[in-house]
């Protein structure tokens, strides 16, 4: 009986989605995605309630929302500590360092050929593993988290930026040469703008990495606040609704972070074909 109810809700929502998706307008596209998300939440709530799943294993969405509402203060302190201090500082520092390194490396083709394969290699490595070492070096507070984030975001951005600085074609470079543009002018007026789509690609990839680095580093030692700290202690107390509330914060922060970077990208690289299409 219970199972029939759950499957019934699923089939009804799915049928509605199939019907909606045949109309294919902007509104139905949004609706279909929203209904799918809502269905998952409803089914989750139903399964937990109908089968009385203990909240230690899987809390219901309503319990998570309640915990979210009653712990706003704690969640905000953790957000400031982990996201604003740890992840954001590290991300900005790492992005700056990578961009400057890329510009420096760019003048020497020899270094470029040597650094690119190594950068690609390092970008695929499990760099999170450096977290315990950096926590040892920089102490428990947010500085060590920022350091982990710097190391994690450096190589993906570097690789993208080096590729971006090489993205101008011979015709464009010749044109700058015929105007007798010095290195600075051609860098500033031609190559940096041309590199922006690549840079933003790297920046967008690394938003998630920054959050992961900041949270995971806290598992190796942290002051008594921070999202990683809260997740590990709340799991210890079997306060799973609070854990899920922290995860919600991480998800919202991650999406916002990505969204803001994507928005800046839209403003900066409005001339690029991938952005132009969306305007028309």
């Amino acid at each position: 009986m219970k199972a029939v109810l759950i499957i019934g809700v699923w089939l009804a929502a799915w049928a509605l989605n199939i019907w909606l998706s045949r109309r294919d307008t902007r509104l139905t596209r949004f609706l279909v995605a929203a209904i799918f998300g809502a269905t998952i939440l409803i089914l989750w709530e139903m399964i937990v309630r109908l089968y009385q799943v203990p909240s230690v294993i899987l809390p219901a969405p309503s319990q998570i929302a309640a915990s979210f509402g009653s712990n706003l203060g704690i969640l905000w302190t953790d957000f400031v500590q982990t996201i604003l201090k740890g992840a954001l500082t590290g991300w900005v520092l790492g992005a700056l360092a990578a961009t400057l390194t890329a510009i420096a490396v760019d003048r020497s083709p020899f270094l470029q050929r040597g650094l690119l394969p190594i950068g690609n290699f390092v970008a695929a490595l499990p760099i999170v593993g450096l977290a315990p070492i950096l926590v040892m070096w920089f102490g428990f507070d947010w500085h060590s988290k920022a350091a982990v984030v710097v190391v994690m975001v450096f190589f993906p951005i570097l690789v993208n930026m080096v590729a971006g600085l090489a993205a101008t074609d011979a015709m464009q470079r010749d044109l700058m040469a015929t105007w007798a543009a010095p290195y600075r002018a051609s860098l500033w007026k031609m190559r940096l703008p041309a590199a922006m789509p690549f840079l933003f690609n790297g920046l967008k990839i690394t938003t998630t990495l920054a959050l992961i680095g900041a949270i995971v580093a806290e598992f190796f030692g942290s002051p008594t606040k921070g999202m990683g700290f809260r997740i590990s202690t709340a799991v210890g107390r079997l306060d799973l609704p609070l854990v899920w509330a922290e995860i919600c914060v991480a998800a919202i922060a991650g999406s916002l972070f990505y969204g803001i970077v994507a928005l800046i990208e839209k403003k900066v690289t409005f001339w690029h074909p991938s952005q132009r299409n969306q305007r028309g």
Partner: protein
Amino acid sequence: MSRTLPVLTVVAAILLVWYLGAIGMNAQWARDQAARAETQLTTSALIADTLTQDRPVLPAPHQVAAGLWDGIAGQKITSKRSLIYHAWVTLSATLAGFGIGSLAGILLAVGIVHSRAMDQSVMPWAVASQTVPILAIAPMVIVVFASAGVTGLLPKAIIAAWLSFFPVLVGMVKGLRTPDGMQLDLMKSWSASGPQVFWRLRLPSSLPYLFASLKIGVAAALVGTIVGELPAGATAGLGARLLSGSYYGQTVQIWSALFTAAALAALLVMLIDLIQRLVLKRMGLGG
């Protein structure tokens, strides 16, 4: 092979910086020891001391190499101190998870390409989920499974599967959509059936995308497994090795575990790269 020399130069530069860093960061401890013993260290003795400490702040490259050699060749494979044993524990969970995750990703991608309702329902969430730091909750998943009585390889494999699932899904959807209208029309003019279009046009043209995302997926699966081994209670695997090293201040142990993980990642990516080359060569794409 015009790359060899530049790469070697950069590697040499990194090693040099590393040695200088090891001398700089370990010097304080060496000086403290000397002051306690009330002896004066000459510069050369100081440098020699910084490169041979038992628990250095930053172990020198040759110490890490020695630690690696000891872990790989100096122990019996079944020993708990053997890096091969720990690497195997990590690798088996990674491969199991990667297999499950990429298979699920491919199957779901096939569904998404063929059903518009599925596309519009699942894809926005799949793309949005890329921005969520899923990896950070990996240890929690382990603890929750452990409280439900499930331990060992399976929980780690689930995290690895989850992490490799999305890159494969997104890449495969993109790949299956690469055939353009012209090619699809051509298939139609041959009155090809749905399965024929899939097997002879969509699947072959998706393979370059599939392999590219498999490489990302396998690296993500490895990271997921290692982070999954972090919570207390895990006794085997490279992640557990990292954690116990950080608890007991065994920096050489941390670095050798880290390098084993790096080698493992490189090996897995290279393996997929090799398969990619063989497959694409037989298909006549790229040589």
